[in-house]
């Protein structure tokens, strides 16, 4: 351990070393002891029917799931990613797990099991309608009225509660779990579900379509600026359980919403599967910002355990002048397979993708974006920063496609990779397809190691080695950190430092 070396080398007192060590470990690795109810292990038509029944779904939803299931059975797991993927036994995990206290759905947050509330409290996400992301320094100085965040909390397979529902309803914004939306707003769900990521889009999305248990639903009506930021917090708690959530966001004409997503899981020796789908529909002149801080348990120093994260995220800028911005900070997961994409269908639409992906120890990340330019005068921008340390492999994989109709469109892509240590790998796999000549596409990528001069400068001014690396890395990521909402940016900055703990020395 690097910190122990520091101890011997510089005679730092024991207390400091311990503080650093505690800071460096995965903070969210604890487990909530709570009575759970499981569906039998494995996936089958019966399980799909059971999940649908547990959610009290109408017939059309069940049909939709079954269609996906039958297709999934015939599909093959994709192998094109630069991942050393262990064999996943899809029959050896639970597809549905909910706290027993959630069997009777609580009518309000006051009725939610205190154990669940305490869980989120401990995660820094109190499910109370007062403060947001606690534990964030300086949050107390923020004008609370302006910085309120509504939270939908998903615990294993179910949503345990959604805050600020009434306040949002006043503005006409619908924010609830997707299971509620299927019951309460079937017309919206029917119209948009699967319209961006079709049921049978890819192996993992198809599996999700068959067995998603819950997730969040957002509808922002025309001309409405969502009065607060919305967020979903995903927590995997139960062992041997897969989490399959589905998020659907519809931003109607001229509306705006900023959406945050966070995720954590306990430390365990065995890997767990997470296969989510996020669909975003953006209509004329509307704008969506979607930010993720993905901090699933990454596995231990030997690469044992961790979450296998297979996520399909796509935004459809369906009408003119729609805008979407994806920002992601990927620090967790043993395996990340994730390509948040933008379909720039309407004329003058724009898509942005800002990403920091950090892989340490034995983590593997294959992540990037797709920018599909279909409309005229469409714009896209990709800024990706990949950091590899330890034995990790980190790949940027992206597509920029300019269709013949997408005249006068523009793309700029910047992918930078930083390597810390000589056992890790950094890879770039961009696909560029240009089918008209009035568009401009530029792609740049660099790979380098942490600059010795910069490190030396920090060290010469008394900054410790690990801290110096964190500083340099934060500088390397600056373009992306700046694109995050403030609370997330602060959290992300400290996460960057924590994720790299133990990678130097």
């Amino acid at each position, binding site marked *: 351990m690097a910190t122990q070396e520091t101890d011997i080398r510089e005679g730092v007192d024991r207390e400091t070393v311990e503080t650093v060590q505690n800071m460096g470990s995965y903070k969210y690795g604890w487990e909530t002891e709570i009575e759970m109810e499981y569906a039998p292990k494995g996936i089958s038509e019966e399980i799909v029917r059971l999940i649908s029944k547990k959610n009290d779904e109408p017939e059309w939803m069940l049909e939709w799931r079954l269609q996906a299931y039958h297709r999934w059975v015939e599909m093959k797991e994709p192998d094109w990613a630069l991942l050393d993927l262990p064999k996943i036994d899809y029959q050896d995990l639970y597809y549905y797990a909910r706290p027993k206290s959630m069997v009777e759905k609580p009518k309000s947050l006051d009725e939610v099991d205190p154990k669940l509330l305490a869980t989120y409290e401990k995660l820094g996400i109190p499910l109370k309608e007062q403060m947001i992301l606690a534990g964030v320094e300086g949050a107390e100085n923020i004008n609370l009225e302006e910085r309120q965040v509504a939270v939908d909390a998903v615990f294993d397979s179910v949503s345990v509660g959604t805050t600020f529902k009434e306040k949002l309803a006043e503005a006409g914004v619908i924010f609830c779990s997707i299971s509620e939306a299927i019951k309460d707003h079937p017309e919206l769900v029917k119209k948009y579900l699967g319209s961006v990521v079709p049921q049978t889009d890819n192996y993992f999305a198809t599996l999700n379509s068959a067995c998603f248990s819950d997730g969040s639903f957002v509808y922002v009506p025309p001309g409405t600026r969502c009065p607060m930021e919305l967020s979903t917090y995903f927590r995997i708690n139960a062992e041997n359980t897969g989490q399959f959530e589905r998020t659907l966001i519809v931003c109607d004409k001229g509306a705006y919403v900023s959406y945050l997503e966070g995720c954590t899981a306990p430390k365990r020796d065995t890997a767990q599967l997470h296969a989510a789908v996020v669909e975003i529909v953006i209509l004329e002149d509307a704008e969506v910002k979607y930010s993720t801080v993905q901090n699933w348990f990454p596995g231990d120093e030997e690469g044992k355990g961790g979450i296998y994260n297979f996520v399909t995220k796509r935004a459809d800028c369906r009408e003119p002048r729609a805008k979407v911005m994806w920002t992601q900070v990927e620090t967790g997961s043993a395996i990340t397979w994730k390509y948040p994409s933008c379909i720039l269908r309407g004329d003058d639409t724009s898509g942005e993708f800002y990403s920091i992906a950090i892989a340490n120890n034995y983590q593997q990340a294959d992540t990037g974006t797709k920018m599909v330019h279909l409309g005229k005068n469409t714009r896209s921008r990709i800024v990706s920063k990949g950091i590899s340390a330890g034995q990790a492999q980190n790949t940027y994989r992206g597509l920029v496609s*300019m269709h013949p109709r997408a005249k006068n469109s523009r793309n700029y892509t910047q992918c930078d990779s930083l390597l810390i240590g000589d056992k890790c790998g950094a890879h770039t796999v961009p696909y560029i397809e240009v089918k008209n000549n009035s568009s401009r596409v530029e792609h740049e990528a660099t790979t380098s190691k942490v600059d010795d001069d910069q490190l030396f400068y920090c060290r010469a001014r008394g900054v410790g080695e690990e801290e110096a690396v964190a500083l340099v890395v934060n500088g390397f990521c600056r373009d992306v950190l700046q694109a995050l909402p403030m609370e997330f940016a602060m959290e992300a900055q400290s996460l960057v430092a924590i994720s790299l703990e133990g990678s130097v020395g």
Partner: protein
Amino acid sequence: MAASEAVTARLSAQAPGPGFGVARAAAAERLSAMGLPGRRDEYWRWTDPAALNTPEVAPAAPEPAEAPLFAEVNSLKVVFVDGVFDADASDDLAMAGVEIARLALEEPAWATGLYGTLEEAGQTPVKRPFGALNTAQATDGLLIRVTAQAEKAINLVYVHKSEASDPILHHLIKLEEGAELTVLETGPAGARFNKAMEVDVAKGARFHHIRVQGAEQDRRAVTHIFARVAEEALFKSFTLTVNGKLTRNEAYIDILGDDAVAHIAGAALGDGKDGPFHHDDTVFVTHAGLRGESRQVFKKVLKNGALGTFQGKIWVKPGAQKTDGYQISQSLLLDDDSQFLAKPELEIYADDVKCSHGSTTGAIDDTALFYLRSRGVPEEEAKGLLVLSFLADAIDEIEDEALKEEIVARLEDWLARHR
């Protein structure tokens, strides 16, 4: 047809050349194991291999020959007509410090253990079925061993005469320590041409390669360069492609030794008005040695529905520290119908390296065009100038000034005819 039947049909369409029985059998086995490529193969997603897979060749009428290139260069000329060595048109195959043998006639001892080995090394991690097919079936080609600095270049001239010619040529070139050789290649070679060139560059040796792929419109070509570069050695290759229904140029360059240098460049010009144009550069550069330097510079000028693709990779293996890898792929689309598809990849397993790649696509810069017009340069001429300046980085990879001038003259001529 089942995959194995397709391979058998393809293999039995032509009789393999003589010699190298062991290597040929191994290559045939490799091909059977990997099968012929299809559109679902990752590295064939943008280029349809169907016309290269068929046992029979689609006829392509030979066009009147252009003025020969490199006529003034001091060289040893070797002519192949539809893939067959033409003794009358060729110079005497003798040069100090260079042993030249014909694959169709001999199997020199030095070549026995080498033939096909670089091709085999180039099959990982990406399959190159036409490379294996070539090793198995090649009927002619040169086996060249260089022990000193060659006094003149070897000038390979390919002539296409028969409209159903389907030659498979394999050149094996071994540069011993400190040796130096320049190889020139010109001409369309056949209706369908499969060529492989294995180049083994030993310590401190220098290899230069300049190729001009023929202007014939209907021909199809699939070529491979498999190179191995030892310490302090240099490998440089430049290719100019003008027209051609289908061209797939693959290169696999293995930088094994420390302080070695490998540069590979290409300029392709396609005008769909002459007929379909599809040009594909698929380039792999691997670094295993310390302080290696590699450059990939690929430029394409496309108009009237021409299509260009580039798949390039810099692959830095563990321990290849201080690697300096550079890759640029650019295309100039002169109208709205042309397409450029690119996949510039980096795969890096060492931390103390400097690797970068860039890729751009777009039309001629209006501001630059306006600048030239405002200084009295007519529009078409101004465009020609801008195209030439766009290609300059690739052409500059040619070290020899006289050769470079010939290439530029050929380019200017093409541009003048395709305004």
